C-alpha cells in the first residue's frame, strides 16, 4: 500500500458500470514526510476521503477486486483508509 494526498476529484457520468457509486479522486503520492513523490493518478474512493486528506491507497488489481467482490472488475487503484498521523 502507498500513501497519498487527495488533491481533487473527477466527475464522470459516461463510464463502465462497475465504476458507478464510487467517487473518483485525484491523488498525489507522498513519502512518509508528506512530500510529493511521483506522478498523480486517479483512485476509487471507498472511505469518503476529501480534498487535502492523507490517504492509504491499494495499487494492486487482485486486492481491489477483493474489495469490490467482483472477480473481473477492471479496477486497480483504490483508497482504503484516511490516515490520522504518520509517526
Amino acid at each position, binding site marked *: 500500500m502507498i500513501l497519498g494526498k487527495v488533491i481533487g476529484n473527477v466527475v464522470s*457520468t459516461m463510464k463502465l458500470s462497475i465504476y458507478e457509486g464510487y467517487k473518483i479522486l485525484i491523488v498525489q503520492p507522498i513519502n512518509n514526510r508528506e512530500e510529493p513523490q511521483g506522478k498523480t493518478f486517479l483512485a476509487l474512493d471507498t472511505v469518503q476521503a476529501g480534498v487535502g486528506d492523507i490517504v492509504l491507497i491499494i495499487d494492486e488489481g487482485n486486492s481491489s477486486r477483493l474489495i469490490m467482490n467482483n472477480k473481473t472488475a477492471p479496477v486497480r487503484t483504490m483508497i482504503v483508509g484516511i490516515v490520522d498521523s504518520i509517526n
Partner: protein
Amino acid sequence: MYLGRVIGNVVCTQKVESFNNIKLLLVQPLDEKLKKIGDPVVACDTVQAGINDIVFYEGGREAALGLKNWFNPSDLTIMGIVDQVNIGE
C-alpha cells in the same frame, strides 16, 4: 487510472481476433492540470469516446478486464469519459 485526451483514432483491419469490433483510439496522457505528459498511446474504447474528449484509462491486466470478452491482449483501455476535473477547494 490516468487522465488522457482522445486526439485521434486508429483503423486496423488485420489484428488479433479478440480485438474485433473494438474501437482503437489515440490518447494523449495528461496530468491533473490537463497538461501533456509523455507520448500518445493507443487504447481500446469501451465508452464511445470521441475526439477531444477527456477520458480516464487503466493499464495492465485491468485493461483486458475492461472489455466484454476479457480474454484479450489489451494493455490500455479507456474506462470512462470525464465531465469535470476539480483541483483543490
